[in-house]
């Protein structure tokens, strides 16, 4: 099974990288660009076929390590 994890910066937390990329895109002429937010994308191979267990364990991974819930949100999808 594969887990795809998305970690994003909470809406009310400043994202200086996103702001810099937004400015760069404007400078390049992409004036239609509004807010840019940068997050993380992770692919995790899981050695299990038990979907319910995978769901529970990936959630624990996110809470403990993959995201810092003070500043980040996470969501994930399971495939396979």
């Amino acid at each position, binding site marked *: 099974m594969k887990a795809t994890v998305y970690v994003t*910066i909470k809406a009310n937390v*400043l994202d*200086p990288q996103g702001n810099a990329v937004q400015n760069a895109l404007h400078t390049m002429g992409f004036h239609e660009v509004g807010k840019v937010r940068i997050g993380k994308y992770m692919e995790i191979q899981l050695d299990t076929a038990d979907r319910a267990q995978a769901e529970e364990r990936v959630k624990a991974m996110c809470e403990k*390590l993959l995201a*810092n819930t003070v500043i980040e949100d996470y969501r994930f999808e399971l495939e396979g």
Partner: protein
Amino acid sequence: MNFAVLVFPGSNCDIDMLKAVEDTVGQPVDYVRHTADDLSKYDAILVPGGFSYGDYLRCGAIARFAPVMNEVRKAAAEGKFILGVCNGFQILTEAGLLPGALIRNKSLKFRCHPVDLRVENANTAFTLDYEEGEVVTIPIAHGEGNYYCSEETLAQLKANNQIVFRYAGENPNGSVDNIAGICNEAGNVVGMMPHPERAVSELLGSTGGARMFTSVLNAFKKRAESGATTGARAY
């Protein structure tokens, strides 16, 4: 008084920290590796700066799971004196020993220069020898020192007098409320982005950080005199 300086893969201010202890208070001090499973002999634990585990994922995110961190958590609960500087501060927030988080500097620049800090709380174990409101010069060197916490957490920090240092001049990183350093509710765990170990001699440009080391020695002596072994604000 026995000091430990923790060393993670990627720590790079550990030598400065150890030398600062030797030069300011002359007490026994050891390097303690990230794999250590016993900190019982130490009275103060210093978590130095650097780039533990390459700052992978997030600064301090992986270091907080090193075996030694279980011992640091125990030591904090026992009321031992713990100081995290720069990456050490990031590790302590990731470990949940201090509230909030450190994010990328607002300017995106790595800032490396002396800053003026106002001592907001002179009652912590690490700031006893300062005057409240005093301004000291201590250098910063970080790319991710922008302190963030929720409004509720900020209100708690203020209510409990947990803000230890604020940037007195320009805010170099965008930190909430100009925060440069905080402590836990009990006051025995302090974290800060500026580097006091780099400000212990005029030859280094400032002696503004030296009293953090004399403070903790005095806190230790006061605690020993009062017979208290643990507990909040029992110096």
